């Protein structure tokens, strides 16, 4: 009989004890990691504790206020004004002004910084500090979804002229103040008593970096830490953690968006029919149950997660026989190739394994090839025809589609190019009417499902290991809820 993987849906809630210290273990990005949010090597876990963004996403993918209270645009959505909250101070006591915001985005757009968000924001023509609390963005093309682009975690606001030292000072406006920090080492933050949104429940958070997944889990089981951040536990581990005394597992629903990009420029997958066969041949439900033991949602090759308002609710057909027929008709019967995977993320191999065993029914033979985690995204990604990849969900729909599916985008991992799709996105951006704009985004999703080169088998819940003492753990929109996170009252 199937063992029930009884994982609690959500972490315990309750009153947090005051004055507590929480210990978080995290995987370090690299020895070169930094606290500069704009960098591609930022120490992600610290950012939400130390900084704020102008606007952020809420649980439903909607843009909501953070440092800005209000925002508005002109009629064709080419000029956007953001009104900042008054009286906010950085940790070093300096007041937050529109100049800091201007500086932050200039910093992101600085080519020397090579920020991953620079591409998404390169439509910004000019940034003006209108007055102390108003900042204005002038865009080169209309974009009705512009505020959502500012929710990325690279867009945390840093003080003016701090670029040189921000990497280790971590001075922001956030609920916690940096105590000390070593790249790829230990660090700690203490509570910001003057936080504008109220004092956080915890007094202090200690971070330690543990690269090896099992070592991280062992640290939790041995009660050396209270929470494993950013770690998606694989299922057996999650079971062990859930069943061990003192530890439990929390889920962040659909946090991991798994993809199987088929390189559209490759000989194997240049043919749309071929790609269609690869999709028809597998059942996302089977992947969900085999690889993730049901902890997630089937994707049906639509990259937009169900949480987003713009989600297109449709289920493409699953028919291995039809897939086999297509393969036969294009002379690709008994198609065989490698599918690459890596220990980079604990579920990659499971998904590759499950996918390969699914498509066998259509006569497709996939040889799973494991590649060292470190070279996976430098040597395999965007160069091998077939692999497993993933993204975090929690980006706004416009950014999601533009960043990952638009022709020529540097994150377009399948190198798919569809003119009609690109035009649809442009049209959506220019459309200030919410309803019709959403329709355009849904049309774009249908295009991806029909012609796209990226398969989205599943959205996986992120399984987070934590101590039973942790209360009010929650995470969405690239940020842990650091305000209410706490330890149970003794």
């Amino acid at each position, binding site marked *: 009989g199937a063992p029930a993987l009884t994982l609690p849906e959500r972490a315990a809630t309750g009153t947090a004890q005051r004055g507590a210290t929480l210990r978080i273990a995290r995987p370090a990005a690299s020895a070169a990691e930094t606290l500069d949010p704009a960098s591609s090597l930022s120490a992600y876990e610290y950012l939400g504790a130390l900084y704020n963004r102008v606007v952020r996403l809420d649980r439903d993918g909607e843009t909501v206020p953070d440092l800005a209270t209000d925002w508005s645009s002109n009629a064709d959505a080419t000029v956007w004004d953001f009104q900042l909250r008054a009286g906010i101070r950085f940790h070093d006591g300096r007041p937050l002004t529109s100049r800091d915001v201007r500086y932050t985005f200039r910093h992101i757009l600085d080519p020397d910084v090579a920020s991953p968000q620079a591409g998404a924001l390169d439509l910004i023509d000019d940034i003006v500090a209108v007055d102390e609390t108003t900042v204005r963005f002038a865009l080169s093309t209309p974009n009705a979804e512009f505020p959502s682009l500012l929710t990325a975690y690279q867009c945390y606001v840093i003080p003016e002229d701090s670029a040189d030292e921000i990497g280790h000072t971590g001075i922001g406006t956030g609920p916690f103040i940096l105590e000390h920090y070593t790249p790829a*080492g230990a660090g700690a933050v203490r509570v910001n008593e003057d936080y504008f949104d109220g004092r956080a429940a915890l007094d202090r958070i200690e971070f330690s970096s543990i*690269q090896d997944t099992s070592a991280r889990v062992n*640290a939790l089981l041995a009660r050396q830490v209270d929470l494993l951040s950013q770690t998606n536990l694989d299922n057996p581990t999650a079971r062990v953690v859930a069943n061990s005394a003192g530890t439990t597992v929390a889920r962040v629903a659909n946090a991991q968006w798994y993809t199987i990009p088929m390189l559209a420029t490759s000989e194997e997958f240049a043919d749309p029919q071929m790609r269609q066969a690869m999709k028809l041949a597998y059942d996302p439900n089977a992947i969900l149950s085999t690889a993730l033991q049901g902890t997630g949602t089937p994707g049906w090759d639509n990259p937009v997660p169900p949480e987003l308002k713009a989600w297109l609710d449709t289920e493409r057909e699953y028919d291995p026989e039809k897939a086999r027929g297509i393969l036969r008709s294009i002379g690709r019967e008994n198609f065989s190739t490698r599918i690459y995977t890596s220990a980079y993320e604990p579920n990659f191999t499971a998904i590759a394994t499950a996918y390969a065993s699914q498509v066998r029914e259509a006569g497709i033979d996939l040889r799973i090839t494991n590649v*060292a*985690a470190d070279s996976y995204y430098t040597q395999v990604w965007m160069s091998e025809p077939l692999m497993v990849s993933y993204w975090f969900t929690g980006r706004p729909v416009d950014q999601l589609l533009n960043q990952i599916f638009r022709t020529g985008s540097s994150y377009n991992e399948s190198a798919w190019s569809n003119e009609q799709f690109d035009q649809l996105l442009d049209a959506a951006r220019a459309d200030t009417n919410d309803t019709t704009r959403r329709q355009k985004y849904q049309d774009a999703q249908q295009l991806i499902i029909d012609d796209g080169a990226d398969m989205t088998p599943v959205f996986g819940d992120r399984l987070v290991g934590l101590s039973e003492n942790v209360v009010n753990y929650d995470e969405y929109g690239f940020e842990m809820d650091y305000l209410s996170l706490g330890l149970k009252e003794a």
Partner: protein
Amino acid sequence: MARLIGTRLATSVITLFLAAFFVFFAVQALPGDVAQQLLGQNATEEAVATMREQLGLDANVWVRFAEWLGGAVTGDFGTSLVSGESVSGTLWTAFSHTLLIAVPAIVVGIGLSLVLGVWAGSRRGTSTDSGISLIALVAMSIPEFVVATVLILLFAIIAPIFPAVVLGGPDASLSELLPAIVLPAITLVIAMAAYIIRAMRSSTIDGLATEYATTAELKGLTRRRVLWRHVAPSAILPVLPVISINVAWLLGGVVVVESVFNYPGLGKLMIDSVSTRDLPILQAIAVLSALVYVTVNLIADLLALAADPRQRTLHSSRRRSRPAKEASA
């Protein structure tokens, strides 16, 4: 005698130089452009060229070797490609951490295994002997990662006596490291003891079978005195290389153990640097390990000189060849 030590020192230096040479050129021969690696796929050609220049990659390879070697001799291995920090600093921290687990492991491991080995050898054929031999056999047949995993399960999770991992990373304090060295050190002791026990056992058996051991016994000496005074000093000679190989292996970075325990030592630095292709660090680790290897061998040679009066006068040192464990992990 002094000349003998002089020759040994000279050969050690040659070995070290050759090792450095190999390491440098092997790393140069790796496919792929370091500059390209660092900048990623989307880097422009000019950027790569600038980077190459910054790294000095466009200079003649021999010139670079000479410069690198010159730096290495003075303890300067350049800066890490990843963190931008001085390699020597990083290396020294990691090495001192490794020493923290290695030295107790070496002291306890060698002492314990020599005693067990002599004990088993002197009671050849008894149940004591079979017991010790069996344990040694099993210990050398179980991979370290299994031992480490089981130790963590038993002594960190089920009975939380010792920490399972080190949280502090490279700048962990001594007070955090001290309790954390116990389990890794035990793992290392188990991994290395088996070979020394076996070597010492068979060497003791050989020693007991010598004419001089029989003669000593027939002089009316107690068995204990025969064993420790007559047999053990010579019996340890063939075991010295086994010990030195194990010690070198242990100090050269115990990759598996350190990665399981998240222990911020040389082994972990090595595996992290392999992942990030941090070549200056890797080169420095290789040279440091070679230095350790050479030093340990030198010490073993000198100890052999001390333990065997014959070697002090006979210039043709008789090479003993019965290595037990050469870098098996």
